[in-house]
């Protein structure tokens, strides 16, 4: 029997994904398309926020949507009704999107003139945080009924997001959710994160979020191509 030898590997388990994600970002920088990865639990309002954002911006920006859904077309039909370009990725039971799946979505949209692309990731606070999708910005939605303790349970997601949208703010008066407590937890995890308080139902706070989107698209268009 040959003797056992120790072979050093030191290779990132996600190195393949990281390469594809970087290629996607290069492509987006060239086409000047801001792609935002939207992550949240099921039912926190990803589709509602998308509909609000599309409604506000569709006359000034070319918008595309890449939808991930484990096995249904419910969300995709709602987005299609707005008239923006959209692609549905059936993840077939997968709990997250990775860069190669998003690449299929980008190829499917097939429009270099898009200014803004939203990825509606699979509803889940754990897995999507682990996989780089190739997006330029990572946004997460937390809704009031989920509770203010979520940063303690799912810290990775909160460290990864550049922007946090606290949705269903209209529920806050009937809940024990404390906005200060949430902001305290989040600021310890991520000092640079921007936080928006919105209600997709009443429209409260949506304007500020839309202004941020508009400004981010404009900043990205003016950023130097590397």
């Amino acid at each position, binding site marked *: 029997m040959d003797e056992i030898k120790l072979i050093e590997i030191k290779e990132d388990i996600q190195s393949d994904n990281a390469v594809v994600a970087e290629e996607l970002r290069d492509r987006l920088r060239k086409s000047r398309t801001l792609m935002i990865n939207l992550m949240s639990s099921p039912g926190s309002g990803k589709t509602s926020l998308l509909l609000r954002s599309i409604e506000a911006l569709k006359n000034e920006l070319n918008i595309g949507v890449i939808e991930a859904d484990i096995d249904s077309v419910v969300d995709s039909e709602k987005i299609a009704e707005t008239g923006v370009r959209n692609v549905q990725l059936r993840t077939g039971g997968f709990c997250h999107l990775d860069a190669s799946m998003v690449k299929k979505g980008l190829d499917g949209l097939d429009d270099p003139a898009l200014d803004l692309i939203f990825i509606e990731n699979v509803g889940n606070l754990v897995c999507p945080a682990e996989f780089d999708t190739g997006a330029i910005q990572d946004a997460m939605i937390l809704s009031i009924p989920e509770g203010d303790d979520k940063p303690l349970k799912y810290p990775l997601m909160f460290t990864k997001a550049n922007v946090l949208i606290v949705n269903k703010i209209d529920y806050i008066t009937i809940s024990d959710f404390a906005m200060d407590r949430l902001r305290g937890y989040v600021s310890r995890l991520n*000092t640079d994160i921007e936080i928006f308080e919105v209600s997709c139902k009443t429209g409260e706070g949506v304007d500020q979020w839309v202004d941020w989107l508009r400004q981010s698209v404009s900043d990205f268009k003016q950023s130097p191509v590397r």
Partner: protein
Amino acid sequence: MHELPVTEHILNIVLKHAERNRVQRVVSITLTIGDLSELENEWIQHYFDYLSKDTIAAGAKLHIERMPIVIRCNACGQTESIRKDQLGQITCSKCGKSDDFSLVSGREYYIKEMEAQ
């Protein structure tokens, strides 16, 4: 939750290195995983056994080396090791600040080494 695709990546990387080193059989694999990542040892091994059965890595034992979550207070430079659920509620034990930390370790996600014949 996503152990299956992750295990596929692990197997591919291991087989690539096995070929490069011209080995006959992979005996064990050591992964280094930060405590911030969710990854279940038991499921990784289970999926690995299934995926590797017709390869030279069949039967290899997976060891997971967990790396603690270590943060540094950017105000005073103090580093400390903490549990995942403490992350959102920490206050620096040296200077008392609570809003400017960086992560020193805890996000590791790589294959460290393997034993092979």
